[in-house]
């Protein structure tokens, strides 16, 4: 299964995503350069974390105009699975593939530690290997992770079961302390209306091996593998 990992100038988790796919097996990850105009023959797309263009204007604002993004949008519109992690999430919001925006963390500080997130829906290509309401421990590392959308959009996300992950405490409760950045409705990840485009702030690729302290992120990739296998069968 071919997965394109996009490298923008300033991406710094592209290699980590590539390695996670290799480590978990069953994938053939390939890098795509931001200036490439074609994705080529791939089954899924990953937009990695980092600081595309330094995030100097707004996180993700400049990267979304990269030539490759036209191909990504087209791929997504055709129903191809696309996941944006951290900066990738920000780019997806900026490009309009996902609603809302990611504002600076409420604390105004960069936040980097393990958080707990709860799987809110398993009806996505990225979460079918999890149990609903399973609690995962996964690192975050971001300055702009504070998800914002207007009330109407939030109601829609809630109503359509499109909130994929929420920040919770270790027991799965939505305590205020468990929300690391002030995100609306504790949102850590969402999907688009056709459920093939995922954006999330935590880094599942950093939690795929015991030596890294957690393997809770692996399910995201195994879900994707299962989804792609199903699609091919």
């Amino acid at each position, binding site marked *: 299964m071919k997965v394109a990992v996009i490298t923008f*100038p*300033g991406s710094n988790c592209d290699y980590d995503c590539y390695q996670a796919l290799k480590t978990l097996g069953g994938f053939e990850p390939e890098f795509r350069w931001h200036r490439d105009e074609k994705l080529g023959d791939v089954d899924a797309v990953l937009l990695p974390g980092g600081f595309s263009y*330094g995030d100097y204007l707004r996180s993700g604002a400049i990267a979304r105009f990269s030539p490759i993004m036209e191909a990504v949008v087209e791929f997504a519109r055709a129903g191809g699975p696309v996941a944006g992690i951290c900066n990738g999430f920000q780019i997806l919001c900026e490009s309009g593939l996902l609603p809302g925006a990611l504002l600076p963390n409420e604390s105004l500080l960069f936040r980097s530690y393990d958080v707990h997130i709860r799987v809110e829906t398993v009806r996505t290509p990225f979460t079918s290997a999890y149990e609903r309401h399973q609690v995962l421990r996964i690192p975050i590392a971001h300055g702009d992770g504070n998800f914002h959308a207007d009330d109407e959009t939030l109601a829609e996300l809630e109503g359509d079961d499109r909130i994929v992950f929420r920040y919770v405490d270790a027991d799965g409760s939505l305590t205020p302390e468990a929300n690391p950045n002030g995100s609306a409705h504790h949102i850590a990840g969402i999907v688009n209306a056709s459920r093939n485009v995922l954006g999330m702030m935590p880094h599942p690729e950093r939690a795929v091996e015991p030596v890294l302290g957690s393997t809770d992120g692996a399910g995201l990739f195994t879900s994707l593998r299962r989804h792609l296998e199903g699609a091919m069968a």
Partner: protein
Amino acid sequence: MTDPTTSPSPVTTDGGAVIPRPRPGDPEITAEVVEAHGLSAEEYERVLGILSRTPTFTELGIFSAMWSEHCGYKNSKRLLMLLPTEAPWVIQGPGENAGVIDVGDGLALAFKIESHNHPSAVEPYQGAATGVGGILRDIFTMGARPIAVLDSLRFGDLDSGRNRYLFAGVVKGVGDYGNCVGIPNIGGEVFFDRAYDGNPLVNAMALGLMKREDLIKGEASGVGNPIMAVGARTGRDGIHGATFASEELSEDSDESSRPQVQVGDPFTEKLLLEASLELIRSGHIVGIQDMGAAGVTSSASEMAGRAGSGVELEMADVPVREEGMTPYEILLSESQERMLVAAKAGREDEVRKILAKWELEAEVIGAVTDDGYFRILEDGEVVANIPALPLTDGCPTYEREGIEGEDVKEARRRDLSPVLEPEGDLTEPFMRLMGSPNVASKRWIYDQYDTTVRTSTVVRPGSDAGVVRLRGTRRAIAATTDCNGRFCWLNPREGAKAAVAEAARNLVCSGALPTAITNNLNFGNPLKPHIYHQLREAVLGMAEACSLFETPVTGGNVSLFNETDGKAIYPTPVVGMVGILDDVDHATRAAFQVEGDSIILLGETSEEIGGSEYLYREHGEVAGEAPSVDLLAERRLQHAVLGMIQKGHIRSAHDCSEGGLAAALAESAVSGERALGVDVQLHARIAPVALFFGESTGRVILSCSADEESRVLEIARSHGVPAQLIGRVGGTASPFSIRAPRGSIEIPVETLRERYFGTLPELMAQTAAEEVR
């Protein structure tokens, strides 16, 4: 920029004979001008001797930068020669951009520490950020990909708003830069004491990994090879930063007379990192060097000096950010994110192509010559022409007079017996100590640092040392920085030994074999005899300890003149040490793991309270004898601990440092995933204040399952290491309890946990004021 078709051929023969003419508008060279450039009369004499004529203003600027303490090491070089630098595993010792050691499996590790103290005192955010940027460039110019950073910080006490502002700004600067480039922070240290008021210390360390054969040096060899400026453009940033870093700060230091602060651009750095590594692997270049302190001047002259060649550079061809920059300004600018590259002749376009891929510029600004001169042109006119070797290596070096300061002698003689009097329930002073920012958790800092990017971090900040695995092998690398400036002030030789010993102990407790060090000598003004005494003694202590531990010094940095209004910082010789784990599964943490485990104390606790955090917090004093260091005992201890870890006998290991035994037990109790109580009974009959809070060196707290207890004690005995079973790890609901013959501590572990983790966030919450900028 000049038209390349009309500019003169850059390689001139017999260029040494050319005498530069003063540029119109350049100041005349007077005694005052010479003095303003930080050169002594004697040094200026030497300049005249080298040139056999009066220097031009541009040349004076060049000498001034190259012969500053920062570049020329004039007051430290002779002492640095005393440090051991060799071992079979050392591939590159001092003198290059970074030291390099062999780590097995065909891999080499480049690592180095660098200070950015003065810039951070003026602009904490940019000062710290550009400090990280500079040390990363030192690593990737060696051909290594950065894999980790650490930061060693010192500030005045946090009751001052200014210090909180500096602390918050520095931490944000360190974080934003490393986070953006995508290098995990795996550790560091921070220490607060009034001695650092006005003179914060910001030392950044970086580690990088490469295949042995990818090592490249900063050499400009091959006559006719083009010299290229690569990366960001040159602006008027930090002109004379190197000279400035070699002077004391004074009251009016923030005034506009200051050189322009350097602003960091981590995005460009990330691109430069990728482009440089690609360039090095491409085979199109012969040498590469960061344009760091003293910019083009030091990078070009050092590259020429190392290769024994000369260089000729055309200033009009240097890509600049601002109009009308003079050669003097271009040469001394410290604009960040720039590299100087010696390319192979004819490969200029290939070099440009690689840089363009990463959206960066590369311009030919000169060439390698064979006449041994460092020659600067402006539109074809020679404006500076200096023999390269005397410029880089001819800086006079000094051995100065050193005498111990009277104030220190007096402080050491202070009778501390009243301090040792309190007995009975010592829970209250214990909790105050746990609320000291020197003892409390540093999570507030490292929660702002990306610690997990690159998916190789095995032990994150918060334990004794950081550990990163080497992907594709079983191995891992551990790193730590350590130095207790108070000990060094009271006794620089013992203090420096203690720093090396603590660093090694931190590595061993994490499961690594200590392998080599880099160091940052942060001191006051060495022209003062009591400061020079500190410097010499510290180097001697470091040399002795490094020899004994077989951890050679592969590089480092010297930052002198850390004084404000005549008041010097504590001598602070920061040790950055790296170690190797043969098996990543040996990685061990400080936190207790399992309820019911046995707690074992290794090492000797003496009745020492001198220089302790307890003394500073409870009595406001820095006095008494610094704790003594027994290097041989230390080595036995470390062998024993490493052996226990490698054989899988123990579940946690933690070094005792600031705050003493009680603080170390507390850290092990509360820093795991869940806080666990402890039940400890001590038998030593010494004063409880010393027993609980004294900072005797050479001690480690272990935990192991009850089954392993006797084996662990036996191993310790066989190494001649004092070892005692002192208690058991409790559960989440058990109290934290320490009892001794004459005193006790007892507190709910949850209360302790809150104090430990809550202290820094609470102190820093008041800083919102300065943080909003």
